[in-house]
């Protein structure tokens, strides 16, 4: 009898499966993680007090929990886009959590909606909604009244005062921007993870805060939709003209990357798309003076590159603008023609007003830090875009590169009160974000060892760069919160002023940051006290202006205004304290309401 040794197979051990996969949670993990982190963010905001706002603005007051939650959202996003393969289920949740965490912070912390200009716009909407008319000579913005009229109608239909719309407008707009932006990004980026990254970069790079209750915020939505339609429905495909070929040759490496889809394949669909473009442009032309030109430049750039089939489109758009400016905005340009045209070609002056004078006009180190953080954040994002362009060198990227540069043409037309560069950054940002996303290399499904090594450090670098961008965003966007937030005591002073001031009176303020003009717009004349009442001599001049008015006049000084003077008007804290002391003690004025540094004053001397 012989015995045969039969080899016994080792007992089967199934490969270890992570618990999240066993429970079927893998696809949900980023969404669950983001929502948990958003909870921590909201907890952090509930422990943040507006009274802690300091020279760094809201960023200086935020609870550490806020930063823990925000860091968690960043890590979730980076982990999600670092995975090989496609995106998990509900992949937009981390992105939406990022938007809520960044945009809703002031709405959840501050007792009143922020930003004095938004209050003024609510007043415009309230007036038009109530009277059905514009106050043509009250303010230049009434020459482009469509936004205020529509907002007034919306408030009436919704049964609320326009003021009630201020608080959540930024969050609503920032969420709405993502919709057309997703279409724009899809036209240039094929990888879904990179697309999410591009959207996130836009959210973090959009620090300029033009999403408040204002025509430009809604017009930016029109701009994005305009480009989404233009880049998809009416795209011309390959760059088939000489300019397009010359620019493309500078960057060309892979000729096989024509992503721009042509959605409108039938003539009827193309006509529908053209009508949509005309409607979007016309709506912009009647509601905001500047956005239409960004649309026009973008359309001209696409036609120039051979990326738009409608070669006559820029001419048609220019005709719409000219027609409205000549007819609808007559009140504005009549008598202001020199102001309008003096900026044309004055690029140096425009840059000086937009950059140099802004940085130079600061008096405190924290203020300087806020302004420098804005420049640094902007430079960092543009640098990422350049890195993306250089790393990719795809022929297709000629289009976003040119669209990112086109907004700079506006600097040659108008300095826009020193704000044109902010708008340029905003309107370039969608394309800068697209280019910056190419700085990232998505991990491949079946990558070899060398390819894996190349992307191994990417998540770590992305977390570091992302943290720097988020920190920069918070300081850049909310760095003005000392004077952009509206204080309840200031709002009470305004209410008291409206109680005592008779119809026809003239109301003076020392600075802009005050929640006024939100009602009774037509009943008063509104003025800024010039010069700033820093010395007794200055104050005498202000009082002389008050006495020169026809009816009674009042001077309103509030904490928000003092903060603005300190931060924005290049006035030292000592000078502000001197001015406050002067107003409290001067025999030339009588305080009829207020305490401390808040007051409603009337001249104590009578008219000569």
């Amino acid at each position, binding site marked *: 009898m012989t015995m045969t040794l039969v080899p016994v197979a080792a007992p089967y051990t199934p490969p270890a499966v992570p618990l999240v996969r066993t429970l079927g949670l893998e696809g949900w993990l980023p969404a669950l993680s983001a929502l948990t982190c958003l909870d921590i963010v909201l907890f952090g905001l509930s422990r943040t007090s507006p009274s802690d706002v300091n020279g760094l603005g809201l960023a200086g007051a935020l609870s550490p929990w806020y930063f823990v939650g925000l860091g968690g959202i960043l890590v979730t996003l980076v982990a999600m886009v670092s995975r090989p393969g496609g995106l998990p289920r509900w992949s937009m949740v981390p992105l939406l959590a990022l938007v809520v965490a960044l945009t809703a912070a002031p709405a959840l912390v501050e007792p009143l909606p922020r930003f004095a200009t938004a209050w003024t716009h609510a007043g415009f909407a309230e007036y*038009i*909604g109530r009277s*059905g*008319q*514009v106050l043509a000579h009250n303010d230049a913005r009434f020459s482009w*009244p*469509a*936004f205020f*009229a*529509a907002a*007034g*109608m*919306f408030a*009436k*239909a*919704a*049964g*609320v005062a326009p003021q009630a719309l201020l608080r959540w407008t930024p969050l609503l707009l920032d969420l*709405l921007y993502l*919709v*057309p932006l*997703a*279409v724009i990004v*899809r036209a240039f980026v094929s990888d879904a993870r990179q697309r999410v990254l591009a959207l996130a970069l836009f959210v973090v790079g959009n620090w300029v805060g033009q999403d408040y209750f204002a025509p430009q915020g*809604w017009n930016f*939505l*029109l701009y*994005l*939709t*305009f480009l*989404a*339609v233009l880049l*998809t*429905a009416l795209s011309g495909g390959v760059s088939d003209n000489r300019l397009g070929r010359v620019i493309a040759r500078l960057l060309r490496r892979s000729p096989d990357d024509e992503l721009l889809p042509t*959605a409108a394949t*039938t003539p*009827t669909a193309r006509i*529908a798309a053209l009508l*949509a473009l005309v*409607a*979007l442009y*016309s*709506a*912009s032309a*009647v*509601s905001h003076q500047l956005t239409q030109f960004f649309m026009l430049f973008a359309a001209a750039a696409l036609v120039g590159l051979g990326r738009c089939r409608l070669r006559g489109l820029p001419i048609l758009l220019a005709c719409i603008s000219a027609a409205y400016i000549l007819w*609808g905005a007559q009140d504005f340009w009549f008598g202001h023609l020199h102001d309008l045209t003096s900026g044309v070609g004055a690029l140096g002056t425009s840059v000086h007003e937009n950059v140099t004078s802004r940085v130079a006009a600061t008096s405190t180190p924290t203020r300087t830090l806020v302004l420098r953080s804005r420049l640094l954040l902007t430079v960092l994002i543009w640098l990422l875009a350049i890195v993306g362009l250089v790393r990719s060198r795809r022929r297709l990227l000629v289009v976003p590169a040119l669209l990112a540069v086109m907004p700079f043409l506006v600097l040659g037309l108008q300095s826009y009160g020193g704000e044109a560069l902010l708008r340029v950054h905003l309107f370039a940002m969608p394309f800068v974000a697209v280019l910056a996303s190419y700085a990232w290399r998505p991990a491949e499904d079946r990558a070899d060892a060398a390819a894996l090594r190349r992307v191994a450090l990417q998540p770590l670098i992305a977390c570091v760069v992302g943290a720097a961008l988020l920190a920069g965003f918070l300081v850049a966007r909310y760095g003005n919160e000392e004077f952009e937030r509206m204080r309840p005591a200031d709002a009470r002073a305004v209410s008291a002023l409206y109680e005592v001031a008779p119809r026809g009176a003239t109301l003076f303020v020392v600075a802009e940051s005050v929640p006024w003009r939100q009602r009774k717009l037509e009943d008063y004349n509104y003025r800024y006290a010039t010069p700033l009442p820093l010395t007794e001599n200055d104050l005498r001049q202000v009082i002389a202006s008050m006495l020169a008015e026809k009816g009674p006049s009042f001077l309103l000084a509030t904490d928000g205004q003092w903060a603005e003077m300190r931060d924005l008007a290049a006035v030292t804290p000592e000078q502000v304290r001197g001015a406050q002391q002067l107003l409290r003690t001067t025999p030339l004025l009588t305080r009829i309401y207020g305490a401390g540094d808040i007051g409603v004053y009337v001249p104590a001397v009578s008219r000569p």
Partner: protein
Amino acid sequence: MTAPVSLIATVALAAVVYADAPALVRLPLALLVFLAAPGWAFFGRGRADVDALVAARVVGLSVAVDLLVAEALLVAGHLTVGWFLAVDAAVIVVAGIGRRSRGSRQSRAEEVPA
């Protein structure tokens, strides 16, 4: 069925405004009408077809229509919420008719052999 739904929403808003219903009822309906109804009537394709381009056109076009209608009524001297909703409803009806005829032209084109 997108234009009829938009029209029903607009008429419902007009009814609750006329009845002076509380803001809790009016606000969501107003958001739907102002941010979606006109654009949906022009470009919505029905339930399952909500891709980003359609959504972008719906929101963007709705805002554009709101602004243009408000401007037109302002110029005409009839800017009231009643007029606004009536014109909005008219725009939706026109969009619906346009979509129907566009749809039938498209189906006729598809029937023609290549």
